[in-house]
């Protein structure tokens, strides 16, 4: 199964770390990512820039409004995502519990949704309209 792991961090906590602490932390995280990659568990992953660089689109009163900032103004912010290939939830929990990143902030593990059926139905609907 595929799981998306959302990694949360507290930017304040990040800023208060010394450079050597930060480097050590990053190195550990990347080293573990390599282990995941080598074993075929790391499907993909991206880090996110800080929430100050976030833009949120909302649909309000019939139009899209653009606001500065992240979706939720909370202490912890989404810092990156990792797409994980695991046998089941216990396996995903085992793999991510060993990720050094969990010491820097919470992980949320979500199974991916299989949209095959939805895609098929939708394309059939669209085909029948265009006929």
């Amino acid at each position, binding site marked *: *199964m595929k*799981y998306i792991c959302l990694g949360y961090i507290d930017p304040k906590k990040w800023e208060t770390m010394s450079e050597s602490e930060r480097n050590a932390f990053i190195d550990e995280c990347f080293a573990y990512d390599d282990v995941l990659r080598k074993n075929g568990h790391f499907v993909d992953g991206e880090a996110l820039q800080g929430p100050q660089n976030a833009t949120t689109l909302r649909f309000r009163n019939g139009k899209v409004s653009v606001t500065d900032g992240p979706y939720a103004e909370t202490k912890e912010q989404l810092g990156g995502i990792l797409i994980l290939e695991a046998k*089941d939830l216990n*396996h*995903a929990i085992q793999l991510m519990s060993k990720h050094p990143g969990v010491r820097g902030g919470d992980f949320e593990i979500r*199974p991916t949704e299989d949209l095959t059926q939805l895609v098929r139905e939708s394309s059939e609907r669209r085909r029948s309209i265009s006929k």
Partner: protein
Amino acid sequence: MRADEAEPVREMVDAVYRAESRRVLATLIRLLGDFDLAEEALHDAFRAALEQWPRDGVPANPRAWLVSTGRFKAIDGMRRRARFETLDKDAAEMIVASDDPATWGSEDIQDDRLRLIFTCCHPALPPDAQVALTLREVCGLTTEEIARAFITAPPTLAQRIVRAKVKIRDAGIPYEVPSQADLPDRLESVLRVIYLVFNEGYSASSGASVTRHDLSGEAIRLGRLLIELLPEPEAMGLLAMMLLQESRRVARTSPAGDLILLGDQDRSLWSRDQIIEGLALVERALSSRRFGPYTLQAAIAAVHAEATDAAATDWSQIVGLYDVLERAAPSPVVGLNRAVAVAMRDGPSAGLALIDAILARGDLADYHLAHSARADLCRRLGRRAEARASYERALALTRQEPERRFLERRLAELQI
């Protein structure tokens, strides 16, 4: 078979249902990979037994017969539905291909029950859903029975169970006993569920009676099943604690349903059988040297159980055990109980100082037992106004009828 011979077979099927239905269900969940399919298959299998056993006789191994019949019915149903949906067909063929009747042996079936327990108590499920699902699937209680026990509307409870099953399927919660490395954490979650069920039975959080024997009885059954399958020291400690607490059940309420405190109980009413079994389990758990908070709580209950009358209670030993417990699993409630034990050992003012410190931290400000304990110590010190204020606070917070009557009685005594 004549009609008068069919009746004993029906009784036999009922008896097999009571004894085997949870085991058969646990195995069917593994074979079919789905809770709902397995439940349907279980009922189909018993329906078939009711039809066939009176005619063909009871099979030599009813459990294996039920598993194989249930599995066959499920595959049959999937193949019939498969005429309309290709997905179901694949699933049916996968079940046929993957499974080997040789794995239906007794060892695997034991494991299946353990798999079921660990799946129902998975920490990725909300705690109230873990409790409901365990009572439903492992204990076989009906949704209505669970709803009544927890004073919840049956539709709410049913929805909780449905959502939990959907999460098990869609989030990929596996049907397995956790690996050795994960076992301590995961066992904790199982023990917590059993403890929650027991606690609700031992001291109902609301309602008309002090205890709910049905729930504490289920918790003890679960505890026994768990140590039969997985004899871990803390599981023994939990079972010991439940047995020792339960041994006092009859003595804890008067015939009119009023609360009787530990010191005032008629100890001849305590169940000797449960005490003997509980004490033996505490010994075993303690001697493992791998025990934790449940075993320590059992050890405290054991000190009470061994005292022939209230005055003979070894309060020093109890305080000592609370000291260890507070280091192992610190919590304000443990602190409160330790304070009460200190009051018994060193006098009410020593206990009162500790309770006031706990309340000053604000931890237990809304916990009725903290205020009633404080009230009792004030009463014994002759500080009547303070005692009254604390009894009134406790009275405002309790949601259980017998406790309310007890607190009102104490208040009335203070008015004189």
